[in-house]
């Protein structure tokens, strides 16, 4: 092949590709000089945010917006169009959808990055909270809350965000949890849109990303642990699956009282605490950050069903722990209504269900309405 041949191939290939991608009659989508844009789920911050924010600032400062609007024949370019970029099909230019219009931030702002804990496509138990981490302590959560759209099986859900300080992720001092008044419906598809990019997070602060999340719930698994009978009873979709003898925390290491949610699972892990370091602990399901688990405790068989003797965990026989490990998933609910320890709080784990709904609606650290 000569250089001329190659040049001809390149010209033809570029031309064919360009024309295939964008037809001659394709109309441009509206120019969106606002900085609201719904992107597909993405953790990473967009470095374009400050640029775009600056663009809006400059535009407003120069008073261009008014002129601009006139040139576009009265089209409202400031409220803009949140353009959802398709994840499966090629984008059709111009298929922007009108966004619920909140005015974008209009002052030079410090970006606040939002990251969601969970990824798309997961299945969880009905007690799972949606968890978002924020890269700064914002001072106004209302635009964030107002922009949030959650649907359950396509129908709008009436949940709410609750904000608390967080140490869970380096660089994310604030954490927000979203839940409904009660548990999620079982066997449901839940989706969240968080088109907050460009929205104010308080004076001098604006969100720099938009997120979406889609997940589903499995069976409604509710385990109830009774500290008087020393048993765990599992009810799945309303049907009792079984009752399992347990041993909870001993007097000086009592198990917390309240509603917990399975946070993580491990078929075999090491556990360390004051005076013990135990590896190969089997069928573990974590319930609190400080390390309460459901797990197999073959060394403690004698006390199961009779006596609280653990370091705070819920000890089970190996067979029962294995069975529960198969039946349960992250997000499933384990209730300890009469355990002897201190009350479970939100930040002790996924302690969301220990916060009353009226309290939840206050938004916690930040007002959400």
């Amino acid at each position, binding site marked *: 092949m000569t250089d001329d041949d190659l040049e001809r*191939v390149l010209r033809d290939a570029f*031309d064919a590709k360009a024309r*295939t991608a964008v037809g001659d009659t394709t109309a441009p989508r509206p*120019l969106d000089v606002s900085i609201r844009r719904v992107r597909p789920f993405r953790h990473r911050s967009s470095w374009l945010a400050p640029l775009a924010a600056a663009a809006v600032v*400059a535009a407003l400062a120069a008073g261009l917006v008014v002129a601009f609007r006139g040139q576009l024949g009265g089209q409202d370019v400031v409220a803009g169009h949140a353009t959802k970029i398709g994840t499966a099909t090629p984008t059709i230019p111009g298929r922007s959808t009108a966004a619920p219009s909140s005015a974008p931030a209009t002052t030079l702002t410090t970006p606040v990055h939002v990251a969601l804990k969970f990824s798309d496509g997961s299945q969880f138990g009905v007690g799972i909270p949606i968890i978002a981490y924020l890269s700064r302590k914002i001072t106004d959560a209302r635009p964030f809350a107002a922009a949030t759209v959650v649907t359950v099986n396509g129908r709008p859900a009436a949940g709410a965000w609750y904000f608390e300080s967080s140490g869970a992720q380096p660089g994310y001092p604030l954490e927000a949890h979203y839940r409904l008044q009660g548990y999620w419906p079982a066997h449901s598809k839940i989706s969240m849109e968080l088109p907050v990019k460009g929205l104010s997070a308080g004076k001098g602060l604006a969100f720099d990303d938009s997120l979406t999340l889609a997940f589903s719930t499995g069976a409604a698994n509710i385990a109830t642990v009774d500290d008087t009978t020393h048993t765990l009873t599992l009810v799945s979709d309303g049907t009792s699956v079984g009752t399992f003898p347990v041993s909870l925390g001993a007097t000086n290491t009592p198990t917390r009282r309240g509603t917990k949610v399975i946070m993580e699972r491990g078929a075999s892990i090491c556990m360390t605490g004051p005076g013990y370091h135990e590896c190969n602990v089997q069928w573990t399901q974590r319930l609190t950050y400080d390390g309460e688990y459901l797990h197999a405790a073959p060394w403690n068989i004698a006390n199961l069903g009779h006596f609280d003797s653990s370091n705070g965990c819920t000890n089970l026989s190996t067979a029962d722990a294995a069975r529960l490990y198969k039946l349960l998933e992250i997000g499933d609910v384990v209730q300890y209504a009469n355990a002897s320890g201190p009350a479970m709080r939100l930040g002790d784990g996924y302690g969301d269900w220990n916060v009353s709904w009226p309290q939840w609606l206050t938004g916690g650290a930040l007002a959400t309405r």
Partner: protein
Amino acid sequence: MPDLATPVKQVDVPALYQQHWRSMVRLAVLLVDDLASAEDVVQDAFVALHRRSEALRDPNAAIAYVRTSVVNLSRSVIRRRQTARRHLRVAEPEATPPADHDVLLRDEHRAALVAVHDLPSRQREVLVLRYWADLSERQIAQTLGISAGSVKSAASRGMAALHRVLGEQS
């Protein structure tokens, strides 16, 4: 009568957008390889122009500015995509074009595009600007902010690499 509406001569961004949107999206598609990212890149480039439009009086300078933005933003898209691949946790959608996207292309063209896509950014940019945008060496140099000599060497290295790759295949 007070004359409040003294017109400031400035670049008409919406008109430029209407006029150049298609060619800019096509340019970006050739650089980033997927339409969604290409459209984003062009939007962002015009937003950047909008920010600068006060300073730019000349529509030709404005469109050169947009073209440079498109090239630079496209490079960022690719870089982000590579970073995302390195951190597998991150879901970067549309990293590959939709399956049906290039079906309409001839084999020869498809092979050439794949080979171009595998070139280093600079070489890819130079070849696209030269053979698709039909820019002169000087214009390419200005667009990329490099010397004419660098354009020349990037072009010849790119062509040599394509010869090698496409030669092996045939």
